């Protein structure tokens, strides 16, 4: 299957501050979550992929188009929903979407027809003739989504699409993303800080930190393969016990109501844990195998990488 994104050794700096450092990425069609702490390089990566920024080193293609020489072709085939609040002054919803469709290469009539269609799709049919600047935050997010979809791109970049939305609006945007990806005609790269959004929508996750791609993996496989999490509550002085566990490679996360969550490596049997507790004179009052959240996985991965660097 052809790659939608295939880049090699892309680097980019802002006045000497490295934002991307020899990033290589090869993605097949699908829906990907782009995850990373603030300043990790997510937005810079998207801007390089869209041709907004020209990297001094590296090569690559987006949908088969060279990122250095064919940025116009790339932008014809790609939809982009920016993170920042942005709109076109003096235009209503349908005018905005139709105009941006025209700029993408649609004829005026087609763009207007399609603008109505996508505004219906994102749920702005009743507000489409209102000036866009009067929209609420959630409506502006939908409008940005509509303009990214108007020319029916083959690849969609969504930069923090649920920012500033109430829970219901967030769920509706996530539903839209799931619906689009279900058609299998469009690949999606979805950047967010809200990890549960990724869990609900994405098949794969790209973790980026300090300008490096840390991993690209299937969310479910990654969780099953790498981590087994337990929640336990102990009676007695537990610190030496946890110190001993950490020496054995166990990750410790604080949990609610006096319980502690631990992520254990695959070769660590639960029986070893009970044995160690007994050796430290502790009573295990509560022990439960629990689901690892993506947030825990993400923090663990980032911590591991920082540990390797140190």
């Amino acid at each position, binding site marked *: 299957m052809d790659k939608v994104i295939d880049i090699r050794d892309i680097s980019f700096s802002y006045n000497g501050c490295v934002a991307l450092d020899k990033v290589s990425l090869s993605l097949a069609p699908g829906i990907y979550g782009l995850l990373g702490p603030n300043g990790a390089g997510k937005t810079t990566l998207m801007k390089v992929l869209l041709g907004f*920024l020209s990297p001094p080193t590296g090569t690559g293609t987006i949908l088969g188009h060279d990122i250095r020489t064919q940025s116009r072709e790339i932008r014809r085939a790609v939809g982009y929903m920016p993170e920042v609040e942005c709109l076109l*002054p003096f235009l209503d919803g349908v005018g905005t979407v139709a105009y941006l469709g025209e700029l993408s290469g649609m004829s005026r009539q087609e763009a207007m027809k399609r603008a109505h269609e996508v505004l219906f799709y994102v749920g702005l049919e009743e507000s489409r003739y209102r000036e866009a600047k009067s929209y609420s935050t959630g409506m502006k997010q939908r409008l940005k989504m509509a303009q990214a979809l108007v020319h029916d791109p083959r690849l969609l970049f969504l930069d923090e699409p649920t920012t500033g939305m109430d829970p219901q609006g967030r769920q509706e945007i996530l539903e839209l993303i799931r619906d689009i990806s279900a058609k299998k005609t469009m690949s999606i790269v979805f950047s967010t800080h809200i990890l549960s959004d990724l869990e609900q929508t994405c098949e794969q996750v790209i973790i980026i930190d300090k300008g490096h791609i840390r991993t690209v993996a299937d969310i479910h496989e990654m969780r099953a393969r790498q981590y087994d999490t337990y929640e336990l509550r102990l009676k007695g002085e537990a610190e030496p016990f946890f110190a001993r566990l950490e020496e054995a490679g166990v990750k410790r996360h604080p949990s609610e109501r006096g319980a502690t969550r631990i992520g254990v490596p695959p070769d660590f049997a639960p029986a070893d844990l009970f044995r160690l507790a007994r050796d430290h004179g502790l009573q295990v009052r509560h022990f439960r195998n629990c689901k690892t959240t993506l947030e825990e996985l993400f923090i663990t991965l980032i911590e591991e990488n920082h540990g390797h660097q140190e």
Partner: protein
Amino acid sequence: MAIKSKGYQVWDGRLLRRTFGWTPIFWQGVLQVFRKKRAKVLYIFAGMPLLLFAAIIYVMTKPELKVFSEFIREYGTDPKLFGAYFTNGFMIFILLLISVHAGASQIAGDRKSNAFALYFARPITKLDYVLGKLAVVMFYLLAFTLVPGLILILLKMMFTGSMDMDLQAAGATIVFPILVSLCFATMILAFSSLARSGKLVTVVLFVLYFASDIVQGILYGIFRSRWFHLLSLRENIQNFGWTIFGVNTRADEVLLGWLSGLVLLVLTAVFGGLLALRIRRMEA
């Protein structure tokens, strides 16, 4: 506001490859400016010199209206008639108003609403963006200078029933409005690219226009030297106009006229360069 039951619909059309990527920006800008508040009042106001000069041409060509000829004696030749049309103070002020009306918010508005992220995610270049915006301002400036100028030539030919026309005046009727409009358009767009508010751009342009005139007036009053006219935008336009239309005949007037033209060209180049620099630095 849930997803419609039919779900996402794939678009089966084909995207066009435009030779001139700026044309949608141009058409959108023209419509947007036309829909602005008080636009119609301004256009009526801007159309008044055309009506007045059409009436002058009519009176000049009709012997039965000789009684009025005393009032229009100074427009007796083509260079004087067309030169007066383009260089009168009212017309220059109208150009200033149209520049502000059509151009002040063009880039400032996009900056204020972060529209670059939307524009440059499309298959257009920064040059397309600038050309589109420039074309909008030029359209309105030329609509009230070049087009009425050509209409006046046609009216003159119709009323006199003759194709006779001073060739220098005819050429200047085309070249002069284009050069002056380009100067105003690059100036307003350069200011617009520096600000986030169209109102601020308007104020700055008016202040510069009147300040240059006032400074020139004071210096001319003190030193009685016409070279200080080079400091005033209005005087430069007028001096250049009288020279290019062939009204100025004295050597010092002609020299001053061409120097004024040079000042306008330099201003156009400086503001054009500033505009290009600002747009190049703008990030999506």
